[in-house]
Structure formats: C-alpha cells, structure tokens
C-alpha cells in the first residue's frame, strides 16, 4: 500500500508544471554553482601552491644574516582550501588567508575575500551550499504544501479512508514521495562533486567518507523540512494557508533566526575591537620581559637567575650568547600573552556559540549550517586551528633562530651572521585540518540537536495525522 501511495504521489509531482519549472531552475543553478565553485577551488589551490613555494624560496635565499634579522623579515603561512569547500564554502570568505609570522608579534590572518568585495556579495553567492541550504527546502515546500490539503479540498480524503488504509501508512507514503525528488537531486549533486574531487586529488586529501557524512547531514535536514511541511499541510484547512505558513517557517528558520542569533550573540558577548585587542596586548607586553630591552627589571631578574644557575659572575662567561637567550625568553613571554588574549577571544566565541545553539531550537537551519561547514572544514573552528598551528610554527621558528644565535656567538655579539644554509634547515610549515571523527566528536551537541529536530518534527507529523 505504501508503495502505491509513493507511486501515485510521485507521478503527480512529476506531472506538475511547478515541479518541472523548479526542477529546471534548480538543475541549471546547480550546474553553474558546481562549475564556478570547482573553478574557484582549482584556482585558489594553484595560487596557494605558488604562493607557498615562492615564499619559501624567499626565506631560503636570505643568504648570510643575523638570525634575528631573519626573524623580523619573517615568513608567511598560507591557508589552503579543502576539497569539501566545493560543496560548502562556510565562513571561508570572511576569514583571512595568510598569516605573517614574525618576531615578537602574533598577526591576524589577512586578506579575507569579503573585505575586498562590495556590499553585493553580502546577499550570498551562487554556491552549492546556497542551493542545498535555502533552495532545496523551498522545493520541498513547493511540492508538498498541499499534500493533505488537496485531499481535504477535493474531498478525496473520504474516498481514501474508505479504502481501509491506515493513516500512518498514508502519511509515510506521502512523506517518502515528498522527500524523494530532493534526495535524488542531492544524491546526483554529491555524486558529481565526489567524482570531480577524486579527479582533482593533487590538492588536499579528499575522503568519500566525509562527503558521505556531509550528504547525510543534508538528507536529515530535508527529512525535517518534509515532516514540518506535511505537518502544516495536515493541520491547515486550505492549501493557500498551508503554503503561507510553511514559507513563514522557512523564512524564519533560514533567514531571520540566524540574523537574530548573530545580533544577540554580538550584544551579549561582544568581541573587542581590533584596536582594543592590540592595546591590551601591548599593555601587558610593556609590563613583561622584552628581548629588546636589557634595562628593564625583568631583564635584570633574568640575568641574575641565569648567572646563578650557571655559577658564573658575568654574562660574558656564559657558554652561550645571553642576548639571544634573553631574546628567546622575551619571545616566550610574549607568546604567552598572545595565547592568553586569544583564549579570551575563543571563550567569547564559545559563549556566542551557546546563543546560536539555543536559537537552533526555533531553526533547524542552524544546526545544519554549523555541522555542514564543520565537516567541510570551512568553519570558524578550522580557522582557529589553522591560526594556532601557524602561531606554534612561529614560536618554533623563533626558538630555532634564537638558539642558533645563542649557540654560535658570544654575549652582545649582534653582528653574528648565520650561514646561508640555516634557513633551509628550518622545517616548512605544514598544516592538516582536523579529521572527520574529531569534527564529529566536537559537534555532538549539534548532532543531537539535529536529531532532536528530526524526532520532534516526524513525531508531531505522525501524531497529527492519526485522526485525519
């Protein structure tokens, strides 16, 4: 019986002009979106590889130089694009792509694409995630808002009942039929993306499992939307009203709720301005050990401590260059300050995330949004992760350079020049994004939220259709 219902409903959907038109529009949008995104993905990665190689060449060919000069000359860490960004661009547009790594300072990632674009780009771009997150749910609404109302309006509900069909079977049949078209489209899209990505394997590691995880998230999202639409249709008396209510839910969930959440998050847990942040850091730096300042109290304390440790009475007698040693200690101290202030920032975002999660109670869009960009490694967390990795690399680089200076020269010898091979021996910056199992572990509460939505919406649907 369920099979028959699915067949009947599907036939009806396929014969419907609405479906044909929207299918045509969506498919053409998707083709454009995939084409554009994959092009962008390829270009970005070519640029990334090129930038990385060139920057490393700059670093390697510094010639003979004082290590600390090299530290000031610095180097760059570039952020690559990951394969699944082809499907979900996440916050990539809003995060910087390059971090300048220099002595004494942790720099923010620079050059986010959004900062170079006009206000037009704030409308959203034609990317697969735009279609998957906003348009597909709309298609579900369009093809199923009148699933139950049409039976009521046409009086066919009585006929159906007289056939002796159980209500839950009827509902399940209609549910599957409403979901099917979007699932087919999504499957094709993810299939194409998978094939494209496995052919582009020179960039990043593409995993089918991650793709499948992403696919599952979206399928659950569509299940939730189908249940909600059918629920509304079963409760409403007229098709027009069912349509308007479903669309209100869509608008509220996909547009209004995220914006309201973002406003509340900013109001309750604001970030410091860039200037405030810098000034707070500078203020603390001024109080502590500065490798460039041998006269400060902290520097004198360090001197005493080291002299005592080595049992000598002059810095000249130390087996290493104390100036470089002090530089390294200063560096470590400053790194601590940065770490502390970035921790505050992270804490603040954690609080903000709490707000997003509580707003997710009225919007199934939010958990999907967060989960999808997490799996695609285009979320904020991955950006933090990258920035932290770059910072660790910066700290290691400073240690390597200061150690070289300390070991190979005497106290106050700033004229020492490290030989030209020194730079090549520094390992290159490597970064790989968090793996899928870690991502899923980090997002258990969001996954639970999404499953909660699935449970509630489908449960409510089957309850409300008990007595049609």
């Amino acid at each position, binding site marked *: 019986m369920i099979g028959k219902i699915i067949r009947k409903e599907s036939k009806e959907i396929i014969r419907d002009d609405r479906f044909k038109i929207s299918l045509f529009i969506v498919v053409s949008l998707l083709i454009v979106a995939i084409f554009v995104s994959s092009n962008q993905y390829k270009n970005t990665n070519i640029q990334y590889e090129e930038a990385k190689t060139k920057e490393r060449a700059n670093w390697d060919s510094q010639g003979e130089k004082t290590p600390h000069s090299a530290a000031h000359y610095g180097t760059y860490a570039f952020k690559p694009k990951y394969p699944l960004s082809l499907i979900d661009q996440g916050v990539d*547009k809003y995060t910087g792509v390059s971090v300048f790594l220099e002595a004494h300072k942790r720099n923010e990632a620079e050059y986010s694409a959004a900062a170079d674009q006009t206000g037009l780009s704030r409308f959203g771009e034609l990317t697969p995630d735009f279609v998957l997150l906003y348009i597909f749910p709309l298609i579900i609404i369009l093809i199923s808002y009148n699933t139950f109302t049409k039976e009521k309006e046409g009086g066919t509900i009585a006929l159906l009942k007289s056939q002796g069909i159980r209500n839950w079977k009827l509902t399940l049949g209609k549910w599957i039929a409403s979901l099917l078209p979007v699932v087919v489209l999504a499957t094709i899209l993810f299939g194409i993306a998978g094939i494209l990505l496995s052919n582009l394997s020179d960039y990043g590691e593409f995993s089918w499992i991650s793709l499948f995880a992403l696919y599952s998230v979206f399928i659950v999202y569509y299940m939730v939307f189908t249940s909600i639409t059918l629920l509304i249709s079963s409760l409403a008396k007229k098709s*027009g009203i069912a349509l308007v209510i479903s669309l209100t839910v869509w608008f509220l969930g996909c547009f209004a709720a995220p914006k309201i959440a973002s406003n509340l998050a900013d109001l309750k847990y604001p970030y410091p301005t860039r200037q405030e942040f810098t000034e707070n850091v500078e203020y603390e730096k001024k109080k502590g050990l500065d490798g460039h300042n041998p006269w400060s109290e902290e520097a004198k304390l360090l001197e005493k401590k080291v002299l005592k440790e080595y049992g000598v009475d002059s810095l000249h007698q130390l087996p290493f260059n104390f100036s470089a040693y002090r530089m390294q200690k200063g560096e470590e101290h400053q790194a601590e300050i940065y770490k502390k202030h970035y921790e505050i920032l992270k804490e603040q975002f954690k609080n903000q995330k709490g707000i*997003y999660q509580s707003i997710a109670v009225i919007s199934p869009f939010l958990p999907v949004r967060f989960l999808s960009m997490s799996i695609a490694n285009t979320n904020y967390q991955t950006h933090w992760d990258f920035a932290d990795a770059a910072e660790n690399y910066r700290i290691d680089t400073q240690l390597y350079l200061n150690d070289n200076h300390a070991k190979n020269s005497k106290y106050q010898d*700033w004229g020492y020049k490290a030989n030209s091979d020194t730079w090549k021996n520094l390992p290159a910056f490597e970064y790989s994004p968090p793996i899928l199992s870690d991502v899923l572990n980090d997002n258990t509460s969001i996954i639970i939220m999404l499953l909660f939505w699935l449970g509630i919406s489908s449960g409510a649907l089957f309850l409300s259709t008990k007595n049609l």
Partner: protein
Amino acid sequence: MFLYNFKYELKLLIRNKWIQVLSVIIIINMLFAGYNGKQKVDKRNADIENITNKVSQEDQLMLLQLDSIKQGHTVNLSKWRVPTSPMAVGNYHPRVAAMQPHDMAFVAIGQSDLFTHYTRPKVVDNSLTIKHTEMTSPVQLLFGSFDLAFVVIYLLPLIIIAFTYNILSQEKESGSLRLLASQPLSIRNWVLQKVILRFFWLVLITILVLTVVFVINEFSFSENLGAFVSCIILVVAYMMFWFALAFAINLFGKSSAKNAMSLLGLWIVFVLLIPAIMGQLSSSFYPIPSRTKMLNEMRALKAETTKKQDKILDNFLRDHPEYASKDDQGKTSFWHRYMASQRIINDELSLLQDKYDGQLRKQHELIQQFQYTSPAIIVQQSLNAMAGTSSTNYEDYRNQVASFAQQWQDFFIPLLYKNKEFTKEQYADFPKFTYQSEAEVTITTKIAVLVLFTLLITMIGWGAFRLNAKKGLVILS
C-alpha cells in the same frame, strides 16, 4: 459606485484579521531592527569616545612629563619612549583617526561589521601597515545582521505578497466576482482600487514605524530632513514595485495558490537569485586580483630592497632601535636612516599596492552597474550609501586615514632631521583628523529605475488582462 465600493473596501480592510496580523508583524520587525541598529551605533560611538578619552588622558600625562623634563627631573620611562624625542611622540602618542557614524548609520549595517571605525597611525605607519579589518567573528559576518535594510529588502515584499496575492482570486473562488461583474464597474479598475487601498495602508504603517525608529535613534529631523525624506521615498518606491507585481499577477487571473506561488517565485528571483547570480558573474568576469599573488610580489620586492638596504644600514641597528642611543653620532641617527630606508621600500611597495587597489576599484565600479538588474540590489546599495556603510564609504575613510598618516609623518620628520626636541608648545600644532563624510547621496536615478520597473510591470499586467478579457476568461475560467 466607485466611492461606495471604496468605503466598503476600507471597512473590510480594517476589520480583516489577516491584515491586522501582518501590520503587527511589520511593526514588531521594524522596531526590533531599529533597536539592533541603535545598539550597533551606540557601541560604535562608545568605542570612539573611550579611545578619545584615553588618548587625551595619555596626552595630559605626556605634557606633565615634558614639564618635568624641562625642569630637569628624570622621568620613569624607557629611553626610547621619552617624549622629548619627536619619534617617541610620533610612535607612542598617535592620534585617533575615527570614522563617526553617519546620522542614518542605524538603517543598514552594510559593510560596517567588516571594518574598524578608528585607528591610530604611528609615525612609522603608512597605508600598507595600517590594518582596517575588524576582529568580528566570521560566523556573525556570514549570518549578517537583522537591520532595517534586511526588513525592508527581504521581509517587506513578503508581507506585500501576503497582503495582495488573492485580491481577485478570492472573489472568484468565493463566487462573489460574478455578483461584482453585474455592477457598473470595470474589473480592472476595481482590482486597481483594491491594490491602491492596500498600498496606502501599508505605506502609512511603514512610514509611521520608520518615523518612530528614526525618533528612537535620535535622528535630527530638522538638520537632515532631506535624508529622511529620500529614505522614505526609496522604501515607498520599492513597495510600489512589489505592489505592481502583485497587481499584474492578480490580473493574470489564476487561482490564489498559483498567485502566491508566482509571487514567491518572483521574490526568490529578485531578492535571492539575481543578487547571487550578479555576485557570481561579477567575480567571474571581473575577478578580484589575487591577494596572495600581491603578497608574493611584495615580498620579493621587499627582499630585494632589504638587500640593497643592507649596504646602507647596519643590520644590527635596523632591528634594534634601543641600541641606537649608543651610537657615536647621537640618538637620532638610527631614526634618520630607518625612516629614509623605509621610504624607499614603501615607495616601491605602494606602486604595487596602487595597482591592486586600482584593479579593485574598477571591479567595484563595474559592479555598480549590476545593481539595476534587481530592485532589491538598488535598495540595498542606496540604503548602505545613506547609512554611510557602503564599501565606497570605507574606501574613502581608508584614503583619508592614509593621508592623515602622511601628515602625521610630515609633522615629525622635519623635527627628526633638524635634530630638534619635541616641546610642549608643538602639541597644539598636532595635525587633527576629522572624518569627511561624502556629500549627500543622490537617489534620483535609482528612484527613476524603480518607477520604470513598476510601470513596465503594470503594463504587462494590463496587457495580460486585456488578452484574458477578450477571451472572456476573467470572470469565468
């Protein structure tokens, strides 16, 4: 008959629960958006005020220190921070270059969440080293703000659609259209009258709420009445466009559900798809120059110049200003050479930077043309411009800051090169930064285009109606 009908319709409209609900939705959303705008503007003002106060406190301290030095006391400061050195003042006592919010900043958040609203350029800074992007959480940037612009662009059309999708079809579906048709009244005029009545009702509510929002935001109507009026005209023109669409769709004479569907389809096309497609087209046809490439070129240039510079400069001194005082030539010698060599580097780098910025500007100008493909884009761009939060405003601010940084440098460099000390008297001559906001925004072209859209659509509706009328489909079908 016309007047009679009008009275009847008005009563119906006011008593209609659906319309009351929609009106309340508009009021709540606009007030909430206005409140959000106020929060953001207040925060922006508070940030600027905080920093200005902090700087003036620091200034007082610096002046006191200058006094003590003059009287022969020693001050408890690191050697390179003593304010008799012009470079110390230029670096450790920079001014605040703030971008105060425009009077209408609460209307549209625009690009304001991306960029900082004040900065303090030091004497060693230049357009390349001053950072303008704000530390906002990217998630917040992704979702955007619930501001007045969002309510007007996204929500208002939806409400108009809900207001009007079944004007004709409802009468047809309930059978009252046949009754109406027996009266001496043209159906077309009758629909027009209903649409206009709803239009005025909605416009009235919108203007009222907008005025309240403006009042809440302490907008000074006496000074900026013009800006307020153009904002209202813009919003009304946008509403007119959507009413015209609704009118045309109604005249096509399809069922209520079909009307709703078509209007929503159009909403998706104008508000979601065209902007997204235009965004994509603009970045495909006129791609933004790659910043990583620019970075590579800059680094190569810098490496090259640094090598040249090594010949001039002692490696040691370049990175260690604090040791410069031990140099025999006196303590200014380091800065002399540093500033000189920085200039060489920056001159070369800014050529490259200008090339990129020029390319970017060209792209932005071209995108400006794309706005005329959808009323939603026109309204977004105009509201951003009125609020002073468009990308042009920020570019403008960046340029002003860059030239102020130059002024700041020019103030200290002569002192440096003449080996003069900084004195209390010079404090009064400090260059001051005042943000010059652009001249008034003209929206005549934009309004004209919106009206053109409206006329075109009305004509299409009219044509369709005449075609249907000829076939006798209006009342029967």
